[in-house]
């Protein structure tokens, strides 16, 4: 449902006197907000936007059978030194018998495969479903696990309404605390070694991946991308990703990574029905650099003024 078609009514309430302490004595004068709309003491009707809705695609063109496929790889184009682990082996200050006991807990803020330079955890997705496309119900259950006080996977693609089972393979309690913008927040504990799992669902699409944390283990962090269509993927340990069933035509993908944010806002790709298309994305140290030094003395604002 869009707001465009709805009408917005409004009334302006005016206070005659600006004094706070005397606010109670002020009179309410109903004034139309803009002079041009002055039509007497009634609420003014305004339509907020009148944008034509693009014609819907024929449902048949969007089947999964002869849909196009996008495959790709994301790789790091410079030398990469692995980040220091968040918790060294045996070095945890919290639940040391479980967290980081058998192996270190890595820093997954930027994970690059030393062999093929593939960057993991890069989200590639269509910000909006193709016009007219109606997503099929996602009934595959997703698993969001925890082991060695680390979320598994670190980055997860979820469709609206899809069931996520939050599991734990650790002998300590965890809690799954989400920080969405368009969904209501979720913060529930997961029992130690719970292999049945706690159910988590989202009811609305988010614009960008959201953070998920555990308050028992403050270093734990993961990302969920929630969209109302299935055209999203996250790169694996080799930097590879795959999106299936795309409607034929031109698409603009968003490429996003937790450390940098947008790597590409509009990655234009054209796909043909029934065919597979491959893209190789390369990003270097420069793209991932975060500025930590002193602020520069000047920035060029304008060349003309």
């Amino acid at each position, binding site marked *: 449902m*869009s*707001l465009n078609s709805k009408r*917005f*009514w*409004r*009334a*302006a*309430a*005016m*206070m005659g*006197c*600006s*004094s*706070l*302490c*005397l*606010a109670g*004595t*002020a*009179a*309410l*004068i*109903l004034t139309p*907000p803009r002079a041009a709309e002055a039509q007497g003491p009634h*609420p003014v009707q305004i339509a*907020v936007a009148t*944008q034509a809705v693009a014609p819907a695609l024929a449902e048949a063109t969007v089947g999964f059978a002869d849909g196009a496929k996008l495959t790709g790889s994301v790789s790091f184009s410079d030398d990469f030194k692995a980040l220091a682990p968040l918790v060294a082996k045996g070095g945890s*200050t*919290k639940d040391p018998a479980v967290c980081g006991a058998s192996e270190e807990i890595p820093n997954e*803020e930027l994970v690059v495969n030393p062999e093929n330079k593939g960057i993991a955890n890069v989200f590639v997705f269509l910000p909006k479903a193709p016009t007219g496309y109606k997503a099929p119900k996602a009934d595959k259950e997703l698993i969001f696990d925890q082991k060695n006080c680390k979320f598994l996977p670190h980055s997860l693609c979820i469709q609206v309404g899809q069931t996520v089972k939050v599991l734990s393979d650790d002998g*300590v*309690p965890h*809690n799954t605390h989400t*920080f969405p*913008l368009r*969904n*209501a*927040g979720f*913060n*529930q*504990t*997961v*029992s130690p070694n719970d292999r049945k799992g*706690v*159910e988590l669902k989202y009811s*609305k699409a988010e614009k960008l991946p959201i953070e998920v944390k555990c*308050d*028992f283990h*403050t*270093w734990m*962090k993961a990302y969920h991308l929630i969209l109302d269509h299935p055209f999203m993927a996250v790169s694996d340990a080799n930097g590879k990703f795959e999106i299936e069933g795309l409607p034929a035509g031109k698409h603009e993908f968003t490429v996003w990574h937790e450390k940098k944010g*947008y790597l590409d806002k509009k990655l234009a790709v054209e796909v043909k029905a029934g065919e597979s298309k491959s893209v190789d994305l390369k990003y270097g140290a*420069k793209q991932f650099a*975060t*500025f930590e030094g002193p602020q*520069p003395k000047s*920035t*060029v*604002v*304008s060349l003309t003024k």
Partner: protein
Amino acid sequence: MRSSSLSLSLCGLTLLLAGCGQPPEPKFSLNAKTAALTPAAQQLISEALVENFGTPNNLVAWQELPIDYGKGSPTAAEAHRQADGWRLKEGRDLYMVHCLHCHGVAGDGNGTTARFLNPRPRDYRQGKYKFKSTAGGNRPTHDDLMRILEEGIAGTYMPSFALLGKDQLGLLVDYVRWLSMRGEIEEGLAIELAQVGLKTADLERTVREQRTEDKSVTLDTVRDELLAEVKASWPDTVAEKAKDVVDFWNEANNAENLVMPVAKRVVADAESIARGRALYLSKENKCSDCHGPAGRGDGPQTEQFSAIDGASPARNYDEPGLRDAWGNIIMPRNLTRGVYRFGRRPLDIYRRVHQGINGTPMPGFGKTLKDEQIWDIVNYVLSIPYQDGTAPAPEGVAGGETVPETASR
């Protein structure tokens, strides 16, 4: 010196004579997230807010929001109630008198008294409320907010306003909801523009990066290009944000989101309390990690360093401690005092344990514990003030394992 004291007394005189002085006009402060944007982007947001919400002295009642603004009645005895929008206006007037100095004009929790208080007054602009009957991050119901105003929040500076009477409290509740919706829309828009890259700091960085290759790039060119993109769909963006906020507040009244126990309360006998204590200390639940083995609010989690939300590169706060959604240090409740912020009925404690406390790290246990177990915990929690905190942990429970461990990063 002289002229200023003269104008002061003149001002006092006008106040006396005319009843209407010239104090600074109240303003809705900018959200810090808006203030971090480049001025042109700030202006976009400010204009959208003024159009749909007005200014403190010139309110706009946006009919799209699920708020009863008060329909004017031509026969009303009070003149101002003859016109539409009188409830909003009266709510504002009451808020300015009773709440302003703590919660601030915009409901930013930043009134003049706020900096002396801990916990700080609620910043309504995220729509995050702690004490409510609804699940998880859902908004509070009208009745939840009424109850807060009637009872106050025990153990904090938030007083009871019961003496104002139900009618006036209803007006205040709607004004708070209105401020909340306004704030949520502002925050949503600011986050959106920040994501586009319109934060002043991000813009400057982009310019620096791009200038190494192309010397014709300036702050103006980069900003204008980003802004043009934003402006093309701006009315839709504002409408979408408003719709999200409206949905959030409507969901609060959805019966599915009301937290109600299925099983009846377990009798609070010695066995139930002992079971509750075992659950409290157990390695399955570890309430003690935060609240401490004896419930003093001093568990080892209070010595851990928390990560700063959304910081890039990821980093921790310099000071250890749990943090709330507003970035303030928050102590787990000292349960030996028997002071509960949102009611001491067993049902209230049940809801806190079942859902956790929104806007804080306290998680809910409703998905892992059965109702009977939660009631056992409730019975134990309510008995803590009368317990011997030094009693050894029950047999088979590793309560002793949660010893304070040394803090480190």
